[in-house]
């Protein structure tokens, strides 16, 4: 699959997600400065990931990252993104749009579905001209951020309260 970004700043779907939740988190993640692994929320997320939709085929790995699931349904490719809650729905939508953009650039037209198993809710996401523009701009922003020698300074936002990076950021 064609890589649309230079190797040194490899944007992945998860990075798009982090970027929208917290740019600082995305920068740290891109340097493999992973967060506190003992954090309960991280453990829960990992469990949901491992236990949801196990009946179906597992994730698909591409240059754009790991898609939770890619299936052909009613003559159309559908990308799944599974999340613990819809709390960061905007971020999840951007992550999914990024996968759709990658597929599009490889000549595969697909639609996306955000799945919130705990809420029994599915949100459909499509890549139209305005979404295309939106996600392309985001990718540029992320590349600029990643090329910075320092992470953006910590900023107190609601997610800090349960973020696994909090002790790192505020130490």
């Amino acid at each position, binding site marked *: 699959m064609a890589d649309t970004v230079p190797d040194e700043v490899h944007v992945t779907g998860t990075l798009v997600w982090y970027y929208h939740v917290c740019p600082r988190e995305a920068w740290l993640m891109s340097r493999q400065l992973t967060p506190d*692994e003992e954090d309960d929320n991280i453990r829960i997320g990992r469990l949901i990931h491992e236990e949801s939709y196990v009946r179906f085929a597992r994730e698909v790995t591409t240059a754009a990252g790991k898609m939770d699931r890619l299936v052909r349904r009613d003559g159309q490719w559908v990308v799944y993104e599974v999340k613990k809650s819809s709390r960061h729905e905007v971020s999840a939508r951007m992550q999914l749009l990024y996968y759709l953009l990658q597929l599009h650039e490889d000549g595969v037209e697909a639609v996306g579905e955000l799945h919130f198993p705990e809420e029994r809710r599915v949100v459909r996401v499509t890549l139209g001209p305005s979404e295309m523009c939106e996600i392309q701009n985001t990718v540029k922003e992320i590349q600029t951020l990643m090329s910075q020698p*320092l*992470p953006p300074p910590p900023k107190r936002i609601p997610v800090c309260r349960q973020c696994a990076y*909090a*002790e790192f950021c*505020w*130490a």
Partner: protein
Amino acid sequence: MVEKSLYIFSNGELKRKDNTLFFETTEGKKFIPITTVREIFLFGEVTFNSKVLDFLSQQQALVHYFNHYGYYSGTMYPRERIVSGDMILRQAEHYLDTSRRVAIAQRFVQGAAQNLRRVLKYYQGRGRDVENPLDKIESLIPSVSSYDDVNQLMAIEGNIREAYYQAFNSILSNAYFRFEGRTKRPPKSPLNALISFGNSMLYTTVLSEIYKTHLDPRIGYLHATNFRRFTLNLDVAEIFKPILVDRIIFSMIDKGMLKASHFVKASEGIFLNDAGRGAFVKQWDERLQQTIQVRELGRSVSYRRLIRMELYKLEKHLLEEKVYVPFAARW
């Protein structure tokens, strides 16, 4: 989920039973739920096989083992899981560049001195005569920043500590725990035995926390590195010795929790016996779980977490994001 430290004092065999641990002694068997174990301290004579070691590595649990006298012998440090190439390079870069290395080493010495001073201040407030050592420490602290050589820094650190030890006999009224100079390998008095044992508990605890970060424990800044031994934990431990180890020692002696029966004479030294180590470890474990408020974070964290945050501060210093300012106890 709260992870625990497991302390084994008895002799026996550690086994893997399905997906958990199992400790068997002549007295009985005990299952140990592995997912809650962060580290194991072995004080007794324990046999185990590679199946157990493999399992512990998989579970990312460290094993610290001590010899018969309670001397720290070594650590089974599992393969690193949390690795950032970027961080390792920065850690080495700050080691290789003398001025950057000294800048960090100075902060460890300053942080340690500040906390030693805090402990003495506390006892001064309680009417103990610690004025001379306190004056000495206060006069030495400003000079730390003028030393640009790691050996000199180690020396000044030694001087500060020596002044600090002068205060011990004013702090401790129990004659059994008289301080007559620091002796190691072997410790020659009960108080020395306590300091040595407490310090090894701290070194290993810091090591366990380093394992949970991106830092490499072999690259320290104050203590000489030969890239084979762990030294970063020794550096960071300096900050916490006064407020964790020494405070526990003072409070235990003060409350009469330690007696002659907790010590043994052996191999030309004096050591804590199992009962003594057990008593200390109990206080130690409780202290690490005790929480204090961290203003910047907006929540309280345990002393163990405070050690982790100290490592995070160091990471941020290495990233050149924020200059490392050592933890200073406020009481």
